[in-house]
């Protein structure tokens, strides 16, 4: 499948998709999007890159093993939920922190870190499956 056209386009496509996936992830709270769908897009990007350039290249580029990524995502998802306990709220209550940087409100929250956790779980698990399938042993 690694034709010249595909190999030429794949890096740009993958990069754009990853960028777009982060955009979808972050806008999720107010517009269509979110961690799950963002994760799916990023996983597709990784799969495409893998088909074009081989699994070894992707694994080197990712630096972190996809399973570790997924495990880390699950961890921060759980921690985001547990954080509420230390603020005296019931489990999984969203905590918000909205600093103003240069006159712009930047809403940060445990809800957002939770969604990032979901994103990482999906990216990690699916790309791990896809890459293992792409490996020709």
């Amino acid at each position: 499948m690694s034709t010249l056209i595909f190999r030429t386009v794949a890096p740009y496509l993958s990069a754009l998709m990853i960028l777009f996936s982060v955009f979808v992830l972050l806008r999720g709270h107010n517009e269509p999007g979110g961690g799950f769908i963002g994760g799916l897009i990023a996983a597709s990007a990784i799969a495409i890159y893998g088909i074009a350039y081989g699994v070894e290249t992707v694994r080197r580029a990712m630096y972190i093993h996809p399973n570790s990524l997924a495990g880390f995502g699950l961890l921060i998802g759980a921690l985001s939920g547990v954080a509420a306990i230390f603020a005296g709220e019931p489990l999984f209550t969203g905590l918000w922190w909205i600093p103003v940087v240069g006159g712009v409100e930047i809403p940060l929250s445990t809800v957002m870190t939770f969604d990032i956790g979901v994103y990482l779980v999906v990216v990690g698990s699916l790309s791990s499956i896809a890459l293992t399938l792409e490996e020709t042993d």
Partner: protein
Amino acid sequence: MAFSPDFMLWLALAPFAAALIAPWLVGRIGGRAGWVLALVPAILFVAFASLLPAVANGVTFAYGVEWAPSLGVRYSHFIDGLSLTFALLVTGIGTFIVVYAGGYLSGHGHHGRFLSFLFLFMGSMLGLVVADDLISLFIFYELTSITSFLLIGFDHERSAARRAALQALIVTGSGGLALFAGLVLMRLASGEASVSALLATPDVLREAPAYTAIFVLVCLGAFTKSAQVPFHSWLPNAMEAPTPVSAYLHSATMVKAGVFVLMRFAPVLGDTALWGTVLPLFGGATFLTGVILGIRQTDLKQILAYTTVASLGLLVMLTGIGTEYALAGAVFYLLAHALFKGGLFMVSGAIDHETGTRDITVLGGLITKMPITFLAALLGCLSMAGLPPLVGFVAKEVLYDGLWEVGGVSVATIVAVIGNALMFAIAGAVMLPFLRRPGALPKKPHEAPPALWLGPIVLGGVALGGALLLDDFTHLLVAPMTGAVAGAAVELHPHLIPTGLYPPVILTLVTIGVGLVLFILLSVLRRAVAGLLTAIGWGPDKGFDQVIAGIVRGSVAVTKVVQPGSMQSYVTATFLAIALALLLPLGADGLPDLRYVGSTPEAFYFVILAVAVGGLWIVIRAKTRLIAIVSLGVQGTMVALIFMLYGAPDLSFTQFMVETLSVVILALVMTRLDLKASDHRAGPVATRDGVVAIACGLGFTLLLLNVVQQPFDPRLSEFFLDHAYDIAHGRNVVNVILVDFRALDTLGESAVVMAAGLAILVLIRMVPAVTRRIAAPDPTGTKGEGRA
């Protein structure tokens, strides 16, 4: 010291904290950590001991905090004579065990881990004996089973230790489940959730219709835990554990938990014909079995283990008889046994440590080599033999009193005399390593370090002191505990020196006489018992292996049926089940209104539907699998389009991505599977698959029609729409539900995604090995690790 309930509640959890820091402390200061950590149980002992005078005067303490209020479960303590005495045993003996373990395992690679397990057990046992709430009582009860599993299996590289640990866990754990059912029934039958409340209404359970069920379940729990016949074989096998474990769990604490439960509930369950028959029967049988099997052994720890089984039987028997004197005898004996057996186990460990063997036929001459250990062993054996001036003697006098009072020369009395005579002979056998002429030993013996002899000397000293200060010992410990078991305050005035030639004194003299004869005939007896056992050939221990092997064989058979390894049969079964689940309820609920139309759809929906149907048509007609997969994507994409047109962008977005990824992943799977490119199902198979597929589709259609025809309850969706922004600061309601309102669900789903991902990885990696057969059943059931 002022009594503070909150302080006691926290303090009772201190062993768990000690379990956390033990490995770290051992890493820092090595073997001396035992001396430091022993402060934890020592402080607990002092705290509980400070309650003694009040409890001796009839005061009880009940206090606690809510634990799981929605379930009505509390973390609460109930301190009366029974729980206080047990708490003192757990913490007092625990103190010396920690010191002892510090010396015994010094330099062992997992010394810290061992102490950690030991403290976990201590915390569980303490929590059990002081528990007031019935559910938390069960939780601590099961924790003792789990922690003792860890302790017995500590040398996990030996298969015998693993088997013993597993056996103890299965026997006591399943008994624990029976106890759980019994406790739940108690709650339901009485409406009370705590021990203290139950004790305040003593007749409710005896009169309840569920009494027999409660009784049987509680007995199952207690008999398995306290190693009654026929569940006794786990206890001698548990001698695979390091000696500090045996000295702690298998003398004073864990195995007494069953007796404790019986004593705890004696006031509310006891004093019935059932109680007075079943308990003495099993107890008496266990008593005799224990001493007869014990006499055969030549390994010090095995001897002690079987006499422990015997002692537990005696305690159950006396608890079942249930008169005031019988109970006083049980309490005296329980205390005496905890003191001498804990001490003797530690002595056997010290001997093992210094000589390299525990075989009494080899050991000898230790009286000069290990004089302090000899003194400790002497105190323990005198008490075990029931000789003055130790608590064991008083215990035997009082229990003979109790048995004589009930029935003169009865079966129970004869059982007790024979059993005690055998116990006397065994106590003599335990002294042999010190008194016999020296034999050839693996190591040149010398006196053990203080950590190893301190515990047994102190416990022996307490047994001696308790007998010499008998009035105080009775007033502070025995009388309050007997009162708690009897359900009413008791007056006890035992004597250390007999005041006349009463029948019980004659029984004692008979016991000693018979015991001496048995001791002289020891080797003859040993051969006789060994010959008898060989003749029988089968025992509960073998039965355990047979049960386990049977379970393994059964599960292999079931696995072969339900997991034949054929993907096609799995998929067919799954979809057939789905179709049936969807269609069968229609028989009861009736068909939905088939003419139902929500609103007339726009013309272009029909175009979309046509494309979807076209995609499906290609799937069915496709010559190659790859084309079929891609065409399936066409149908999915059309569905996504419909979602979008109906105003569900999130859903549609996700559907697009899922479709894309599934096509990619399915195509990748196809490249890996060694399949023919074309589908070659024969006619009948294709027909069967077609019928299942159509049934599924029909089922889903009817289900959806049914759903949309139900009146819509808008409360939840309105709540989410109204409050997504003001509560959760988000305008995308779907996402707000996912990450905020129902975040716990999402976390669970993330975990599932990850677990599924890992499982898929394993499957892919396993493909070359798929031809491996299911492993043959393993007769012992202990070597099953790592089998697919």
